[in-house]
């Protein structure tokens, strides 16, 4: 069990001070600001935030997939097994993508290529990184399809994406990602586009794959319900910054950042029961128009003078916990357990 | 959506957007110059287009003949101006014939649908199976060479293209609620078509007509070049080019000038068409 957020000790994947800018009509806008976290072997880490919080860009920049232009890496590093990914050439990165670190995306409908069979798309990854014959690669495709629970996999490798349901397509995506038995899987909102019962199945699949393959998972989501179900630790992002970092249990019991409290209370079952804040008022600020001081202060119910004066650092607040709130010691925030 | 109808606010936005497209505005200016200089040819041209000057054959540019002369000593500039009249007018005639045939049929097919639509659609399919120039040549083979016959032939060849555009635009407009409203209060069909449908398909129609004028100009030039369209001694850009090619070794200017004129005119029509499309395109705009 990780006991401290010290990079280099337990992190298979270490993101350190990552900053990403995007070119906009208003000039360079900073969408990911000084983000740090790590993912260890066999661990599922949730990266949580509203849309626009920078969580997807963070996920993409780990593999160097942020489109450029308009994006650019403005600072920080990503280390994988001690190697610096941000310093690597594109060619070296390609050997890592899909092989050591795989990624799956939100839309299983559009993330698979409609013009090729799923078998082709899965075996392509295998042949890219492991070589070998077409036949061996197809056999591997059947194997991973079976692994993710696609019935009749020997026949289904010949099928095209449009012949699968949404949930099945996401299974195919996962199968594709698992082909080379990656050490890290980045899953960007893997269940958002699916209906609730399918969501649960996919989450269960992810966590059982973690157990079989022993990979670390970075689960990007806006849904704390998903986090509660499968994650070991949580990184909460707001307006490009990490605002709270914590093991799952304590975060749900006792959040240390008002934004996290807002997210917890916005979870459907809880919000309804408490009768309080059903959603956080206001909107995520635009990256070219960030509030001074705490970036959350315009929406925060606990704002005081000192929240607005200067940028707030990420503070250690106990056992493996960090919060970006100056009032965190004074506040008694409500958990949900 | 308020921009659905081509009412005055919509029209104003349309004009504003079109004006914002610099290339299209330049094209409009270039085209206006071509049209004006052609229209005013009798007053602008220094010589009669058929005036022969045997002592000055295949001459280079000079004070007397700014663009030189052809193999009969005719003034190239004068011929170019008069040829512009013939060529531009020919293109306009061909497209008008296509419009007279294609627009009403497209409206009918799109508005009423059913068997009429099916039959007209298949007829258009058949006509579009022939390469345009070859069909035009075949029609001219039957009717004989000449500008009028060539224009009628081109009009017939282009009609199905216009028909298709009008039909699909009508189909889209037909599905709008304000059409249904008119129909439900008992407005006669022809009234709905003329007052409600036609104004709303004008913009795609204009775009198509602009592009078609370019195509017709090219086709007319090709036919005249072959001697199937405008018959000498009347000058057109196409037959000037055909005649000029014979003297290309000694006087390449005879190929340059008419060719440039055709190219400028077709380029202008195309750019104006593109500008019109961008100016009206809600859906296109949204995508970018």
């Amino acid at each position, binding site marked *: 069990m990780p006991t401290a957020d010290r990079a280099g000790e337990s992190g298979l994947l270490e993101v350190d001070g990552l900053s990403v800018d995007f070119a906009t009509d208003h000039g360079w806008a900073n969408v990911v600001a000084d983000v740090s976290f790590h993912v260890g072997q066999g661990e599922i880490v949730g990266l949580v935030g509203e849309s626009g919080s920078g969580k997807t860009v963070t996920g993409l920049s780990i593999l160097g*997939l942020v489109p450029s232009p308009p994006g650019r890496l403005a600072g920080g590093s990503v280390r994988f097994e001690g190697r610096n990914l941000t310093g690597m050439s594109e060619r070296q990165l390609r050997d890592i993508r*899909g092989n050591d670190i795989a990624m799956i995306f939100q839309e299983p409908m559009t*993330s698979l290529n409609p013009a090729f069979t799923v078998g082709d798309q899965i075996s392509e990854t295998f042949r890219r990184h492991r070589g070998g014959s077409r036949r061996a690669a197809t056999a591997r495709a059947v194997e991973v399809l079976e692994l993710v629970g696609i019935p009749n996999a020997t026949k289904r490798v010949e099928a095209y994406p449009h012949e699968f349901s949404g949930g099945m397509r996401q299974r195919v995506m996962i199968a*594709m990602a698992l082909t080379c038995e990656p050490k890290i899987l980045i899953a960007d909102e893997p269940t958002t586009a699916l209906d609730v019962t399918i969501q649960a199945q996919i989450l269960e699949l992810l966590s059982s794959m973690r157990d079989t393959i022993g990979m670390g998972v970075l689960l990007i989501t806006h849904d704390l319900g998903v986090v509660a179900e499968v994650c070991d630790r949580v990184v909460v992002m707001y307006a490009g910054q990490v605002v709270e970092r914590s093991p799952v249990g304590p975060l749900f019991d006792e959040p240390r950042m008002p934004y996290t409290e807002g997210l917890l209370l916005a979870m459907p079952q809880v919000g309804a029961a408490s009768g309080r804040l059903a959603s956080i008022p206001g909107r995520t600020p635009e990256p070219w128009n960030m509030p001074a001081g705490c970036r959350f202060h315009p929406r925060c119910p606990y704002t005081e003078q000192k929240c607005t004066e200067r940028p707030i650092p990420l503070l250690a607040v106990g056992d493996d916990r960090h919060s970006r709130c100056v009032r965190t010691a004074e506040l008694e925030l409500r958990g949900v357990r | 959506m308020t921009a659905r109808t081509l009412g005055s606010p919509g029209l104003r936005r349309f004009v504003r957007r079109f004006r914002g497209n610099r290339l299209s505005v330049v094209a409009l200016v270039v085209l206006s110059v071509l049209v004006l200089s052609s229209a005013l040819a009798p007053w602008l041209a220094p010589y009669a287009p058929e005036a022969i000057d045997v002592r000055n054959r295949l001459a280079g540019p000079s004070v007397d003949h700014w663009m030189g002369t052809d193999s009969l000593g005719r003034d190239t500039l004068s011929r170019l101006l008069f040829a512009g009249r013939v060529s531009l007018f020919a293109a306009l005639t061909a497209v008008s014939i296509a419009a007279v045939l294609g627009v009403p049929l497209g409206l009918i097919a799109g508005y009423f649908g059913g068997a009429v639509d099916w039959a007209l659609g*298949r007829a258009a399919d058949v006509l579009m199976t022939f390469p345009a120039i*070859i069909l035009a040549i*075949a029609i001219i083979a039957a009717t004989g060479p000449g500008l009028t016959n060539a224009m009628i032939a081109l009009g017939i060849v282009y009609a199905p293209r216009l028909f298709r555009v009008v039909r699909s635009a009508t189909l889209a407009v037909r599905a709008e609620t304000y059409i249904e409203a008119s129909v439900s209060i008992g407005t006669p069909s022809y009234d709905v078509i003329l007052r409600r449908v036609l104004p709303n398909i004008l913009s795609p129609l204009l775009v198509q007509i602009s592009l078609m004028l370019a195509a017709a100009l090219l086709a007319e030039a090709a036919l005249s070049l072959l001697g199937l369209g405008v018959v000498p001694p009347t000058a057109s850009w196409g037959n000037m080019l055909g005649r000029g090619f014979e003297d290309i070794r000694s006087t390449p200017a005879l190929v340059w000038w008419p060719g440039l004129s055709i190219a400028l005119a077709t380029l202008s029509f*195309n750019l104006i068409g593109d500008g019109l499309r961008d100016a009206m395109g809600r859906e296109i705009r949204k995508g970018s």
Partner: protein
Amino acid sequence: MLGLFLRRVLVSIPLLGVVSFLVFSLIVLVPGDAAVALAGPDPDPAQIAAVRERLGLNDPYLVQYWNWLSGVLQGDLGDSLFTSQTVWSSISARLPATLSLAGLALLLAIVLGITVGSVAGLRPGTWIDRVATVTASVGVAVPYFWVGMILVLFLAIDNTLLPAVGYIPLTSDPVSWLQHLIIPATALALAPAAVIARQTRASVATVMSEDYVRTAKAKGLSPVRVVGKHALKNAALPVVTVFGIEANRLIGGTVVIEQLFALPGIGQLAYQAVFARDFPVVQGVVLVSAVMVLMINILVDVSYGYFNPRIRQS
């Protein structure tokens, strides 16, 4: 795929029937008495009667058509009114030149159009893209016959790099064949290449922002594979559509180009037949060119099935 092909061929048969009827009916457009008009200058009654007999103008119209069609189905397009040859032998003797010209031009248009379009579409907004876009706008508009003339001026007259006119059969001298066809084929290919480039640019630019392209990158594939395999196959559909339209236009253009460059193709045959009012030959050429267009359309439709598996299965 084969099923799709056969289905498409079956659908074309009634279309071809109507097309043939139309081609036959062209003679209706001849003003006055067709036999008089087609018998040449100052015909005597015997000549007129002979033409009438040869064209079968004495029979009822549908019978005339039926006789003509049953001949056509057996490969008999009738006889020329002026030469002693059958129409089919005149056409088949001239098909190689036309097919050489059209084939080479189409190949050039595809290669040029897809290359330029892809390069521009992969870098939207850059100067390469802008240069390509402007070039394409101009390329669409300039008259192909004029381009041919200017190329002759530069490449055959100012510099004698290539022959100006003429044709050498592929079988007798492939190099010379190519040398004679480069200028006419380039002239003919320019506008279709520009249209294909425009469409390819738009499709590639759209496809490159699709999620599955991101997936392909995340798999560690090289840019060549991401673009060449994943993007281009999806970008191909609209490109194939404009290719079909442009192929139709290009076949029409061969008539003019063959005449300008003295290429002995079916376009030149048609041209001569128009002036000779050799109507059976005109009909034959029109029919053959319509069949060429139909075949290209079938190929285009079948290729939809290759590029989009949904079409194949429906």
